[in-house]
């Protein structure tokens, strides 16, 4: 399993986010986030990796699906910057970055970019996962610029 070494970036007074409402298919993903692990699904028949969770392999339709940890390293596929809040808990977080990141292992996912000024965010930049405990037993993933020398 991936080493749970990435630091938590939660600030005590930070407004909470809307909570994910896991399905039976996605519950393991969110449970792993609580453990500070990023996991994706893998097909035991054809070896492909993917997110979001499914009960079958998208490629070969096999039901033999397992979860596997990934490195947490990614590159920025695209992003946008919110400059208005569309939910009350986000007012204090403006401007914030919503992103599509491509994991080094292939799958893409929707997340936030943290630890960077929105003006410094660039498509293609190297990223690493961090985790944010937003409520008891609920942890969101986010990505921050990755210092390759770290």
């Amino acid at each position: 399993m991936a080493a749970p070494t990435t630091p938590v970036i939660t600030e005590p007074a930070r407004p909470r986010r809307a909570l994910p409402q896991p399905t039976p298919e996605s519950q393991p993903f969110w449970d792993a986030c609580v453990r500070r692990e990023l996991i994706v699904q893998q097909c035991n028949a054809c070896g492909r990796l993917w997110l979001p969770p499914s009960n079958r392999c998208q490629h070969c339709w096999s039901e033999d699906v397992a979860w596997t940890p990934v490195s947490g390293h990614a590159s920025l596929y695209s992003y946008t910057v919110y400059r208005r809040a569309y939910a009350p808990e986000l007012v204090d977080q403006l401007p914030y970055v919503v992103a599509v990141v491509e994991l080094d292992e292939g799958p893409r996912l929707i997340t936030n970019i943290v630890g960077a000024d929105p003006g410094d965010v660039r498509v293609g930049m190297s990223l690493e996962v961090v985790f944010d405990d937003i409520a008891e037993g609920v942890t969101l993933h986010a990505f921050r610029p990755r210092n390759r020398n770290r």
Partner: protein
Amino acid sequence: MMYRRSAAIVGAAHSRLGEVPQSTSLGLMADAAVAAVADAGLRPSDIDGIIVRGPDDEYCFQQQLGERLGLNAAFATSLDNGGASQTLAVILAALAIEAGLATTVLCGYARNAWTRTRRSGSRQARMNQSTHSRTREWRDSFGYFGEPATHALGAQRHMAMYGTTKEHLGHVAVSLREHATRNPHAQMRSPLTMAEYLDGRPVVDPFGVYDCSLRTDAAGAVIVTDTARARDLPHRPVIVRGFGSHNNLQGWTVDDHMVQTAARASGERAYRIADVSPADIDTAQLYDCFSYMVLAQIEDYGFCQKGEGGEFIAGGALRLDGAIPTNTSGGQLSEGHVEGMLQVVEGVRQLRHEYPAERQVPDAQLALVSGHGGNTVCHTTLILERG
């Protein structure tokens, strides 16, 4: 067996458009339907097919319309392809007519988005909702709301890959506004300068308010019948010469779907069925929910190379005297957003040569009309021909 090009659009209309206080989507749909039947020179009893769609929370809109207008129908349905549904309605009408399932089909769409927004307060109402009542698992927790952000992700990717700029997107908004200044029905009729565009209130990068389509109360409708019957009707028919569709159902964030949209494969099919090429098209009426989607489709439909849309549009391509006059009513960015239905209506009117010279694409013979939606991966194409 290939489509035999035996369907034609013989009537086209829209309802009151813009801010229609206290309107209902069904009431607007009825208004547009009645006007389209009258425009076609037909009687209500001639209609034996209905393909109409309303706001997403309206169940079985075709039944509601039939009840309101006193119509039964041999063939009737609503559609669930989002903004791709309205051009798909015309495609299905043409197929139903060739198959003998119906002879004369009413296609339409209605929304009362402006009235609904006023009633609910929209953004403020959403802000006041409890957090858990609006959660979608892979979006809301990350502060990702709404269609602007989805399309903004595509625009940002395109900018990074091809050097497309905010000013390039601005030329889409400015060009379409110029068209709208000549359209007495348009919601936005005052000219828009590049400076005003760049100064527009930010929404989600790179979009400002002028990159986003309007909130509109309106309906549009067209009547499709066979070309033989069309010859006996008052207007010069507009032939449904060809059509295509493609659906990147695996999603917007997968592969390169957000920079090479489903318009490309849909267009290739449509060109093949219609036996025409991009150079033959005289005017394009594209689904412009956001400025970027015009730029992407101009490339995907082959009016210029992929990645060159920004410079192509900055050179005036979308203007009435440009390489491909586009969204000549002002489109959803400036005329009104009726989920692509008004793009069908505008294509018909341009091919009828209905407009004064200041708004008419000279000698327009072929129009391309697109629909795009359904989580921004469903796409449909019509190629219409002056009959």
